[in-house]
C-alpha cells in the first residue's frame, strides 16, 4: 500500500527579499514516509521546521527542492485536499459567526452538503453542542481549538494533519480530544500530529519523527525509539547485597531496581552470573525504556 504521505529530499529556505538579509533554511533534505492507518507524531524544538513541513505537505508553502506526495497524489490537486482534514496551529475564526455557520462554510468549500443533524453530531463529538448558538468571538482558546478540530473532521477525511491539536485545551479536554483521534484512527484514518506536548504525542502516536534544524534526526515506531538497546532493568529478591551488585556492574535505580548496561547477551549473562555468585536471586529482567523527553533530548544532544 502506498504511504499516506511521503516527502523526499525536501528543502525549504525562507528568503528575505528586503534589506539584502540572508534567508533561513527551514527544511534541509527531509525524507519521510508515513504509512496509511498509523498515527505519526512529529516532535522537535521551536524552529525545527515542523510547521513548515506541514505547510509544504498541504501546498501552503512551496518547497525549493524535493517532492511531496499526499495520498498518492500531488498536494496541489484540490481533489486530494478534499480527503485531508487540517487543523492549523493558530486557527483564525470569524468572531461574529456561530459554530454551525462556520462549519457549513467549511463544508461548502470542501464540496460537502452538511445536514443539521450531522452538524449537531459533530458539535456534540467535540463538546460544543451547548455552545452552538454562541458567537465564536466569545469562545475560549480551547473551545476554538475544538471547533477547528470539528472543521478538520468534516467529511471523515482519510488523513488528519493536526498542528498542536490540544494547544489551549484543558486536561480533561485533552483526554476527549485524544479519544476522538483514537476513534478516527480506529476508523482507518491516518493521523499526522505536530505537538510540543510529548506526553500527548506518546499516548496517541505509534510512530515518531524527531525534527531539528530542518532535518529528521530519528524516525520509527515509538517503542523502538524509546527502547534503550544496551540497557536493562533488573530486580532481585529482597536481601541481595547491594555493594556486591554494584561491584558486579549494576547501578541502583531506587525501589529495589538496578540498571545494567550490557551491549550483548554474553555481557548480560556474565553480569547476572556475577550477581548470582554474590547471592542475589533474579526475579525480573526487562529492557530499560526511556520516555519521549529523554529520546528527544538525546537526539538533540547527538545532533549538536
Amino acid at each position, binding site marked *: 500500500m502506498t504511504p499516506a504521505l511521503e516527502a523526499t529530499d525536501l528543502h525549504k529556505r525562507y528568503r528575505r527579499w528586503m534589506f539584502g538579509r540572508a534567508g533561513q533554511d527551514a527544511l534541509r533534505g527531509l525524507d519521510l514516509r508515513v504509512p496509511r492507518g498509523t498515527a505519526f507524531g512529529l516532535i522537535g524544538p521551536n524552529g525545527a521546521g515542523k510547521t513548515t513541513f506541514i505547510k509544504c505537505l*498541504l501546498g501552503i508553502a512551496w518547497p525549493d527542492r524535493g517532492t511531496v506526495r499526499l495520498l498518492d497524489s500531488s498536494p496541489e490537486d*484540490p481533489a486530494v485536499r478534499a480527503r485531508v482534514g*487540517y487543523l492549523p496551529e493558530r486557527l483564525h475564526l470569524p468572531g*461574529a*459567526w456561530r459554530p454551525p455557520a462556520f462549519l457549513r462554510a467549511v463544508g461548502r*468549500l470542501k464540496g460537502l452538503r452538511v445536514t443539521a443533524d450531522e452538524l449537531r453530531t459533530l458539535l456534540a463529538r467535540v463538546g460544543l453542542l451547548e455552545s452552538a448558538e454562541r458567537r465564536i468571538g466569545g469562545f475560549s482558546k480551547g473551545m476554538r481549538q475544538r471547533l477547528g478540530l470539528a472543521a478538520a473532521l468534516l467529511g471523515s477525511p482519510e488523513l488528519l*494533519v493536526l498542528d498542536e491539536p490540544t494547544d489551549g485545551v484543558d486536561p480533561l479536554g485533552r483526554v476527549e480530544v485524544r479519544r476522538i483521534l483514537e476513534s478516527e484512527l480506529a476508523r482507518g484514518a491516518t493521523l499526522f500530529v505536530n505537538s510540543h506536548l510529548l506526553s500527548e504525542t506518546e499516548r496517541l502516536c505509534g510512530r515518531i519523527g524527531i525534527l531539528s534544524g530542518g532535518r529528521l534526526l530519528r524516525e520509527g515506531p515509538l517503542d523502538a525509539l524509546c527502547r534503550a538497546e544496551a540497557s536493562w532493568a533488573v530486580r532481585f529478591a529482597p536481601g541481595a547485597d547491594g555493594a556486591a551488585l554494584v561491584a558486579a556492574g549494576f547501578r541502583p535505580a531506587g525501589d529495589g531496581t538496578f540498571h545494567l548496561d550490557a551491549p550483548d547477551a554474553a555481557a548480560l549473562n556474565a553480569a547476572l552470573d556475577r550477581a548470582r555468585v554474590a547471592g542475589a536471586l533474579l526475579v525480573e529482567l526487562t529492557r530499560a525504556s526511556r520516555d519521549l523527553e529523554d529520546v528527544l533530548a538525546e537526539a538533540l544532544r547527538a545532533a549538536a
Partner: protein
Amino acid sequence: MAADLLREAGARKWFLGLAVAITLLLLALLGGLRLEVVDGALAATRLFGKALFTPIRAADIALRPVFIAASYLIFYGGMAFGLIACSDFAPALLSPGRIEHLLALPVRRWELLAGTFLGVLLLGLLGATYGAGGLLVILGFKTGVWTWHPLLAAALAAVGFATVYAGMLAAAVFVRSAAVSAAVGALLLVSGILAGNRRALLTTMSEGPGQLVFAAWTRVMPPLSTLAETAADVAAGSPVAVGQVGTVVGECALFTAGALAVAVWRFEQRDF
C-alpha cells in the same frame, strides 16, 4: 467565498451602519420631499419645504438634477465608504491561521481571490442598487416618473468601485495591510479622477518630464471621473452614446483585469 464574504460583511458594524444610513436618508426623503405634480408636470419641487426649481417643467426633466446628484453621491460617496470599509477584507483573508486553513481546503488559490473580489463587487452592487432603487421608488410614487436609469447608473458606480478594489486587492496580496490597501484605493481614486480629466489638465502643464510622467501615469489609470460623469448622464436619462459607455467601461475593465492578473500571479507564488 463570495457568499461567505457577504455574510462576514453583514456582521460588520460598518455595513450595518451604511444600510441604516441609506434607509434613514430614504425615509427622510420619503417624509420630507414635497412634490406637487399637476397634469403630469411638476408644479414645484420642494425639498424639506424649500423650493428647488421655480420654472414649471415636465416632471422627468425637473427630476434630472436630483438623479444626477444621487448618481454622484452613490459613485463617489459609495467609493469613499468602500475604500475604508472594504480595505480589511483581503488582509483578513490572508491573516495567519485563516489563509493556511483555506489553502488546505479543496479550493484553488485563484478561486479564493476571485471569490473575495466577487463578494466585494456584489457588496458594492447591493449597496448602490439599494440606494438608487429606494430613491427611484420614492420619486416614482411621488411624481409618477418611473425610470430604471438610476439603477443603470448604480451598476456603473459598482464598476468604478470594482476597478478601485481590484487595485486594493492586488496591493493586499503584496503587503497584508488594511491601511496600505485603503491608501492604494485612495491613490487610485484620485488618479482616476485625474485620468478622466487628463486632456484638460495636460494643456495646463508646461512641457517637460513632469508632464511626461503625468501623461504616462494617467494613461494607465482608469478614467473614473469620466465613468462618474457617464453614470450621472445615464441616471438623468440624458442621451449617451453606447460607444462612449462601452469605451469607459472597457478601460476600467482592462485595468481591473490587469490588477487581478497581478494579484493572482503573486498569490499563486506566495508562501503562507
